[in-house]
């Protein structure tokens, strides 16, 4: 168990040391640092459609570059962040967003974990309620009929129950 932990730590260290790869080229940058910061922020939320698991901010693909330039142009033209994202989702669909929006077809993704939590909670509550009602009933003691069956059972166990008991011992 120790070895994997060490490997994991080493891998983590390596990624830290590697740092992010900067794909944004100097000639793309906007003069206004505030706008450039917004552009970087938006770029990190946009998927590079060619490489798919990188943001356009990280990708060297030509299309990613075109999109980065486009984002900066829209910002320079006075678009809000939301308008820029909308501009691109109009053309490429929600898939262009790295963070999936809440839509009916992403409900499972967004609410699935909560639904699971809810089900598990309900199950636990149900189990605990059962336990409590057992305790409440227990306080009232056994009914005459149950007492009779229990006695009958114990009487038979006295006959062959010893075997069961040794079995139990062995299992433990």
């Amino acid at each position, binding site marked *: 168990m120790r070895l994997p932990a060490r490997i994991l730590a080493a891998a983590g260290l390596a990624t830290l040391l590697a740092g992010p790869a900067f794909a944004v080229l100097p000639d793309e940058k906007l003069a206004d640092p505030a706008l450039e910061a917004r552009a970087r922020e938006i770029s990190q939320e946009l998927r590079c459609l060619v490489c798919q698991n990188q943001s356009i901010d990280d990708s060297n693909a030509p299309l990613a570059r075109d999109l980065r330039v486009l984002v900066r142009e829209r910002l320079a033209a006075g678009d809000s962040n939301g308008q820029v994202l909308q501009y691109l989702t109009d053309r490429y669909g929600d898939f262009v967003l790295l963070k999936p929006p809440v839509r009916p077809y992403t409900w499972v993704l967004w609410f699935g974990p909560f639904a699971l939590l809810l089900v598990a909670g309900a199950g636990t509550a149900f189990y605990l309620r059962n336990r409590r009602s057992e*305790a409440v009933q*227990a306080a009232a003691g056994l009914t005459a009929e149950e007492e009779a*069956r*229990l006695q009958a059972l*114990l009487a038979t166990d006295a006959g062959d129950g010893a075997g069961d008991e040794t*079995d*139990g011992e062995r*299992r433990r």
Partner: protein
Amino acid sequence: MIGFWLAAAALTAVAVLLLLRPLLRPAAEMLPTAAFSRGIYTDQLAEIERDLGRGLLTPEQARAARAEVGRRLLAAAAEADKADKGRHVTAGPSRKLAMVLTVLLPLAALGLYLPLGRPDLPAVPFASRTTGPQVPPQVLQAMERLERSLKDNPDNLEGWTLLGGTYAALGRHADAAEAYRKAVGLSQGNAELMSAFAESLTNAADGIVGPEAQSSFEAVLAADPGDARARYYLGIARQQAGDLQGAIERWAALLKDSPADAPWVEPLRQRIRAAAEQIGVDPATVTPSPQPPSPPPAMAEGGPTAEQMQSMAAMSPEQRQGAIRGMVDGLEARLKDNPADVEGWLRLARARSVLGEPQAALDALRQATRAAPERVDVWLALAQSLAPAEDQPSSPEFLETMRTVLRLDADNPQALYYLGEQAAAEGRTEAARDLFTRLLAQLPPDAPIRADLQKRLEALR
């Protein structure tokens, strides 16, 4: 290897045993949970009694505890009864399951190993490296010389044909196409050259039969409706255009006309099968039977085709050599029956010299001159094979050949040159001067050899 199989078998056996142990354990030994908990509850009831006796529990508490445990015991007893009834039923399937596992597990392991894991499987690289063919430096030098001479003398049909063939062999298909284009122009539409041109165009376009290649192949077919290469590629053009039905029809027609032992028959069949499956047709219904094999079919069409080359490329060097030799011998046998076939003899001579049999090549060329004593090019071909190495005296046969050439073509520069040189060497000054003067008249004004010749003429005075 045996060691590996033993180890693999041992590991598989261990895996099977691990799986079988729980399955084959006697059913009685497997204590159902219900019976187990029943024992515990009985113990707990006894304990409650004891604790009550010792005064650790109030009667109130003892009653509640006894009720809770007692109910659980009753439930467990009911469960155990049910399990008792089921126990004998479950014992059966587990034995069956064990048997199935014993058989299936090793089979599955083998089934995965043989197609995926064997070390002698070919590697599956992401992209096979494209290294060009290894070219001997002499070939490159010869090619450069040829390129230079064609720059000076662009009307040399043979030169362009040779250059095209060399480029094609080196995989420089675009260059090959351009060389062949010149050759086609010079030959005024020779079908064989046009076919080679179109094939190079196709190869240059990564196998796409573009519009120019297509119209060239169509022109080839117009000249020679039986040309297998053109028919094959025009089928490919239909396939690339998405007309699989049309492609199949063309290929099927070609297959029907081909001798069964033609080397393109098998690739053709595969193409038809793939296309038929793609459009959901039973390949058997669209694949005709080829013609009966005709000896020797390969050389009958004028040199090996691309298909032939392809199937040969798949052979080992020895096999290839054998296949080529077989074809060449077949050609020779056929020529013995039909000695008037000049082209056949010439082809045989080329093949023999490629195979490194210069004597056999010479014999074939002599046969060719016998078949066509009036053709200058045939005599010249013979002369070329007989030509003396530098600083060596010319053989009598060579000189005789040259004389024949000169008789047929009084202006032939080679004949004039060699015969002139021979005359000079023998001291026949008059004859030498006459021959060299005639040669000078033939040469273009900027020929590099002119100055040299002038000098020699002066010396002969």
